[in-house]
C-alpha cells in the first residue's frame, strides 16, 4: 500500500522536525537569564533551599542530560509541574486544550465553507462587482493585525458604539467550552475575519487557474453542462492547493491565537502561553510552544496527505 508508506515517510519527517523544534525551544529557554529555582522560591529563600531545589530540578546536570530527561518525560506523557504553582501542568493545560479546540472548530466550521464559496464565486464572476468587492475586502481584512481587528470589534459591538456583546469570554473551570456562547461571538468573529481572506483568495486564484485550463475548455467543447463543468472538472482540481492553506490556518487557529485569546480573556492555550510567559513558567512555556509547533507540523502533514490522495497523478506515482 504505497499511500501508507508515503504517510509513514512524512510522519518520520514530521517527528524529526518536532525533535529539532524541541531542541530549539530547549536551547532558547536554557539561555533564559534568571534561575528557575529562584523563580520558584521567590526572593524569600535561603541559599541552602535554592541549592536543594536546583538539585531537585536537576539544574546542575549537563544541558544534554536535562534535555533528554525533559524530552523523554514528555514522550511518556508526563509534562511535569509548573514552576510557579508547583501543580501538575496537565491540570492547567488540559481544559484549555479543549477550549482552544472548540474555538478552532467553531471558527473553522464558519470560515472554511464561507471562504471556499466566496473564493469560487468571485472566480466565476471574475473582475465583476462581486469579485472586486470581495477581493478588496479580503485584502483589507488580511492586512489588519488581529488585535487591531479585535479592538475594533470590541469598540463597535461591546463598548463604544453598541453594547450588544460581552467583550470577554468566561468559561468556568469544569464547564463545557460552549457554556458561554455569547461570550465566544467576538473571538470567533475576529478569527473568522482573520482566516477567511487567505483561504478565499487562494481558492479564487486556483479556481481561476482551473477555469483557464485546457481541460475545462475541453469539457465545455464536449458540451458538458456548466454545472458539470464546475462541479466535476473545475472545483475538485481547484481544491488541491486550498488544502495547504486551510491546514496552515487551522494550525494557526489552534495555537497562533495568543493575541486573540488574550484580548478576549479566552481560557485557551494561547492565553495560557501568554500567562506562562508573563509568569516565566518555563515548563509551561516549553510544553505549550512544543505543542503548538506540533500542531503545525501535524496539520501540514495532513494537508500533504490530503493533497496526494486528492491528486491521482501524485497518488498513483507513489512507490
Amino acid at each position, binding site marked *: 500500500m504505497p499511500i501508507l508508506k508515503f504517510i509513514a515517510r512524512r510522519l518520520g519527517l514530521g517527528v524529526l522536525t518536532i525533535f529539532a523544534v524541541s531542541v530549539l525551544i530547549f536551547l532558547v529557554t536554557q539561555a533564559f537569564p534568571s534561575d528557575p529555582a529562584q523563580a520558584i522560591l521567590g526572593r524569600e529563600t535561603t541559599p541552602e533551599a535554592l541549592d536543594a531545589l536546583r538539585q531537585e530540578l536537576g539544574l546542575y546536570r549537563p544541558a544534554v542530560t536535562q534535555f533528554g530527561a525533559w524530552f523523554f518525560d514528555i514522550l511518556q506523557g508526563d509534562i511535569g509541574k509548573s514552576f510557579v504553582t508547583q501543580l501538575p501542568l496537565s491540570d492547567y493545560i488540559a481544559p484549555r486544550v479543549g477550549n482552544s479546540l472548540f474555538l478552532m472548530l467553531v471558527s473553522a466550521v464558519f470560515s472554511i465553507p464561507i471562504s471556499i464559496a466566496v473564493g469560487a464565486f468571485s472566480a466565476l464572476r471574475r473582475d465583476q462587482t462581486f469579485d472586486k468587492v470581495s477581493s478588496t475586502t479580503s485584502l483589507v481584512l488580511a492586512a489588519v493585525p488581529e488585535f487591531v481587528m479585535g479592538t475594533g470589534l470590541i469598540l463597535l459591538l461591546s463598548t463604544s458604539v453598541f453594547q450588544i456583546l460581552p467583550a470577554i469570554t468566561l468559561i468556568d473551570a469544569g464547564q463545557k467550552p460552549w457554556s458561554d456562547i455569547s461570550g465566544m461571538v467576538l473571538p470567533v468573529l475576529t478569527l473568522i475575519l482573520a482566516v477567511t481572506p487567505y483561504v478565499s483568495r487562494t481558492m479564487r486564484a486556483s479556481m481561476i487557474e482551473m477555469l483557464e485550463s485546457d481541460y475545462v475548455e475541453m469539457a*465545455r467543447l464536449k458540451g458538458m453542462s456548466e454545472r*458539470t463543468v464546475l462541479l466535476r472538472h473545475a472545483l*475538485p482540481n481547484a481544491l488541491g492547493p486550498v488544502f495547504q492553506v486551510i491546514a496552515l490556518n487551522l494550525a494557526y487557529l489552534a495555537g497562533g491565537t495568543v493575541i486573540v485569546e488574550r484580548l478576549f480573556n479566552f481560557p485557551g492555550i494561547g492565553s495560557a502561553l501568554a500567562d506562562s510567559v508573563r509568569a516565566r513558567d518555563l515548563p509551561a512555556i516549553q510544553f505549550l510552544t512544543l505543542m503548538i509547533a506540533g500542531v503545525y507540523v501535524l496539520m501540514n502533514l495532513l494537508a500533504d496527505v490530503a493533497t496526494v490522495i486528492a491528486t491521482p497523478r501524485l497518488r498513483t506515482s507513489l512507490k
Partner: protein
Amino acid sequence: MSDGLRIVDLRLDVEATGCDIVDQVSISIAKGRVLALVGESGSGKTTVGLAVLGHTRRGVSINCGKVFCGETEILNLDEGDKRKVRGRLVSYVPQDPSSSLNPALRIGLQLREVLEAHNFGGSDEARKARIKEMMAEVLLPSDDEYLERYPHQLSGGQQQRVGLAMAFACRPSVIVLDEPTTGLDVSTQEHVLKTIRQLTRDHGVAALYITHDLAVIADLADDVAVMYAGRVVEQGEVAEIFKNPAHPYTRHLVAAAPDIAGKKAIIGLAGRAQSPGKRPVGCAFAPRCELAEDACRVEFPAMVSVSVRHDAACIKAKQSSSGVGASTKSESTRKIGEPVIEVSAVSAGYSGNLVVHDVSLTIRKGECLALVGESGSGKTTVSRAIGGLHREWTGSIRLNGREMKTMARQRAVADRLAIQYVFQNPYGSLNPRRTVGDSIVRPLLIDGKSKHDARRSVLEVLDKVSLPSSYTNKYPDQLSGGERQRIAIARALVSEPEVLVCDEVTSALDVLVQAAIVDLLSDLRRQLGLAMLFVTHNLPLVRSIADEVAVMSEGRIVEVGPSESVIGNPQQQYTQSLILATPSIERSMR
C-alpha cells in the same frame, strides 16, 4: 456532394481594442473530406477552429459571420443549444491531449460523460458498448482496467487517441482537429493520422484539420486553406496548392518546407506576420512580399479564382512568376577536414539508470553531423555530454585529440569556448534581464578580451547573423523567435568556436523562419569551416543541412552514414520504418 461544414465571412475581434484577429474567413468542407487550415503561429487558425463550435477564448468575441454544420447555424444558437450541439453535431480534438484531459478523472468517465451529456445511446449498456466500440476504432484496449486509468498513465499517442474517441463518440458530422499530432513522434503521428483519415472517411465527417506542417497536409487532407494574418489567402485542392501555389506566401511556405523525399534545399523568409492591430492596410503580406507593389498596400485583394476550386487573394495570383528562386549556393566550396570531435564509447544516464549506451561519433572540420531520433532516444543527452552540460557520463570525448573533462566548468577556458551550444528554445536560452549585447559579449569577457575588442567582435557577429547593430541594446522579449535564435547563434559564434552543437534549434520556429535559420547555419558552416552537430527529430530537415547522419534509438546508434544514402536507402529496419512514417509532400503528390 453536400457541405458538412460551411463558414461564411467570419470575423472575430479582440474585445478590448476592437481590432480583428480573424476576418473575411469563408470555408466550406464536404462530408467525408478533410480540409487543412494551414498557417504560421498567430495567423488565427485555432481561433477559427474554436469559432466553429461557437466558442471563443477569453477577451475575444465573434463580430459577424455564420457557421453551418449541416443545416444548423451555430453562432446564433443560445448557450444551451450550443452545448447540445458541441460534441454531438460538431466536436473538437485539442492540440495538447496531456493538458486537455482532466488529470483527476479516469478516462472511462471522461468518455462516458460525453455520451451521457448528449444522452447518446439511451441506456448505460448501450453507452458501455459504444465506448468499447470507440476504443476499438482508435485502436486502444477497451477492457475496464484500461478505462479505469488516469490520463497521466497513458502515453502521448494514447492520450490523443482517447481525445479522438471522445470527439467521435457521438458520431458528429463535423470535427475540428487542432494540430492533434504536434509533439508526437513520427511513428505515433502516422498511426494517429491513419485513424483520423479512417474515421472521417467511414463516418462521412467533415474535418477541419488545423496545422502548420505541410507534409502532414499533403499526406492527409483533401483541400487546403492557407491563412495569413487572420485571413485566408489561398484555398483549393491539396495537389493544386502544392503543384502551382498562386499566392506568394503559399509559394514561400512550399519552398521552405523540407521534404524527406523531395528537394533538399529549402528557402526561408525573414520577418514575421504582424499581430492584430498592427496589421498594415491592404495585403498583410505585402511588407514581406518581393512582388508587392503600391496596389497591394491600398486594400486587401479580393479572392480570385486561379483554376477550378482554387482561389487566391492576390492581385498577381494569375501571373505564375515564382518570386521564390531556388537556392543558388554552389555546393562545391565545402571541404571536409580533420576530425574535430571524437566521441567514443560514451554511456550516459540520470541518477544511475543509463539512457545512452556506448555511443561513438566523429565530426570533422566543416562537416555537419545530424543526430536524429525520436524523443527519449538519448540524442540530446549525447549532445549535452559533448557540451559539458551533463554530469553522469563515461567514455571519452576528444576535441582535436584532447581528452575533455566531464563538466564544462572543469574544462580549460579555450576548450569551453571551442565547443559552443545552441539551445532548442530561443525563448529560454537568453537571459530576459540582459540586453542582447551583454548576452553575446560574456564569452569574450570570460576569454579575457578587452571591452573595446569585445564590443567590436559583437557587432561583427551580429552582422554575421544578419541583424543590425542596433539590436545590442534590445531585450530578448522585444524580439521574435527567429531573431532570438539568431542572437543565440551569434552568442555561440562570437568566441570563434570550432564546434557548434545545435540542439533542436528550429523545433520551436515556424517553417519559414526555420528555413531561414537552417540557411544561416549552412552559410556560417561554409564560411567558418565549423564542425556542427545538428540534433533533431525532424528527418526531412536532415537532408537540407547535414552531410552525415546518425540515427539513434533507445540510447543506441542504429545507423550512421552520409545523409543522402541513409535517407535515400536506409539499411536498418528501424530507420526504414522511421522514414516511411514521415509524411512527405513529394511522396503524396506522386
